[in-house]
């Protein structure tokens, strides 16, 4: 990292922080564009991953089949998938020579969505599996008594613990919006096309443009805080209302 220009380091950091806040408060178009793309990519990934992960988690929680414990261990282990490895695998699959090369998705936002979906699917599925299984232990006698089993039981459980599942989905969103390795590799960090908050922060920091990097960092943290606060409030309200 190149040294900061001029004055004492502390002053420079204060100046950078001030210009970062300036960028945020004036809705700097560069910053807004990057934030918007980040949200679009990560929220899309969360949407797709949730649609796949909730049924998967519920099925593993409720169904009894050979190898189930193995599936649970693998699912839990995949929660710690390194983003760069996911990025690498998706890169290989989408590259010109790869099996899906003809789709021409590499270095586009859809490629980033695919990578992040793969990254966070196990997180949401594993957390949902745990939540559904806890509920299943409580509900199973009653549901079986009513003659409800299989898919109907899994759907009932998912709906009944919907507010707890918010936590699982948020964990996925947190991971997606914070990771840099996967989007960097499959997106390529192309200015105006695939540049998101995390890749910009990495790039601007190494270029020495601290105001933009800091500004993006602040926005990133604020967004994550805001989403978590909102989810917390929703969950609290639901807890009070439904018990």
């Amino acid at each position, binding site marked *: 990292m190149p040294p900061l220009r001029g004055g004492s380091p502390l002053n420079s950091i204060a100046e950078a922080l001030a210009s970062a806040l300036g960028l945020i408060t004036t809705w700097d178009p560069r910053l807004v564009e990057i934030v918007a793309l980040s949200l679009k990519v990560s929220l899309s990934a969360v949407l797709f991953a949730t649609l796949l992960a909730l049924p998967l988690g519920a099925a593993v929680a409720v169904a009894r089949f050979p190898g189930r414990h193995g599936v649970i261990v693998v699912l839990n282990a995949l929660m710690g998938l390194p983003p760069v490895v996911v990025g690498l695998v998706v890169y290989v699959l989408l590259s010109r020579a790869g099996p899906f090369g003809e789709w021409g998705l590499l270095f586009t936002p859809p490629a980033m969505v695919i990578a992040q979906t793969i990254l966070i699917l196990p997180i949401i599925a594993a957390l949902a599996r745990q939540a559904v299984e806890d509920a299943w232990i409580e509900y199973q*006698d*009653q549901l079986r*008594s009513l003659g409800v089993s299989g898919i109907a039981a899994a759907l009932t459980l998912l709906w009944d*613990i919907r507010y707890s599942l918010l936590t699982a989905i948020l964990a996925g969103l947190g991971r997606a919006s914070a990771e840099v390795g996967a989007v960097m590799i499959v997106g390529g960090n192309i200015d105006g096309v695939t540049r998101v908050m995390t890749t910009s922060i990495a790039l601007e920091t190494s270029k020495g443009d601290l105001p933009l990097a800091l500004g993006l960092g602040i926005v990133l943290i604020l967004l994550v805080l805001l989403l978590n606060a909102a989810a917390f409030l929703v969950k609290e309200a*639901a807890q009070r209302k439904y018990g």
Partner: protein
Amino acid sequence: MSALLPLRLAEVSFHAGGRVILDRVDAEIAAGPRSVILGANGAGKSVLMRICHGLLAPTSGAVQWSEAELPRRPRRQAMVFQRPVMLRRSALANVVYALKAAQVPRAERRAHAVAALAHVGLGHLAEHPARVLSGGEQQRLALARAWALKPEVLFLDEPTANLDPSATKEVEGIIAAIHAAGTKVVMTTHNLGQARRIADEILFLHQGRLAERAPVERFFSQPGSAEAAAFIKGELPWT
């Protein structure tokens, strides 16, 4: 439609973790009289009831209904548990859910559910979320949910064990009404006073064995087994 009852248990045993929970229980449970399965904690009452209701499979022995329930058809028996399990939706919606599971046509569900809630005195709480109701109200809701299904047999597993005396009284009143409406009532309890109030016949379980079976008056006046006599004697001062 022919009837589910009588239910025949032949040499039903249940083992768990190397322990014998039920030891070769033979019994026939017929339509009509209220059967109370009486016994101390750990006698195997709940396990026996779960086996009858099909929630547990016996380790050995046979559970045979007069006419078997068919898979993917509505159940013709219901069960109320010691601790009611309610879904996170309104009291009314909990009953409607059970009716849907029982394949009652959509158009009829609401009316049935409203009527069932009225039967147990919960009409005014129909739109309240079920899980924030009091313990006694939740147990009445569980009874309404079971009753709405119009089961041929209703199993009740210590339905008042967690309730205070006034809630217990309400629940016992509802059980009497369900019996009067023609549903076969099978209940477990360890409470002698409750057994006297509710039972027509007693099945006394002792350490996993069916030690005695008798009409309620005879059971309490002239218990035929030493275990039952001891249980009645030991328990009476506290009931």
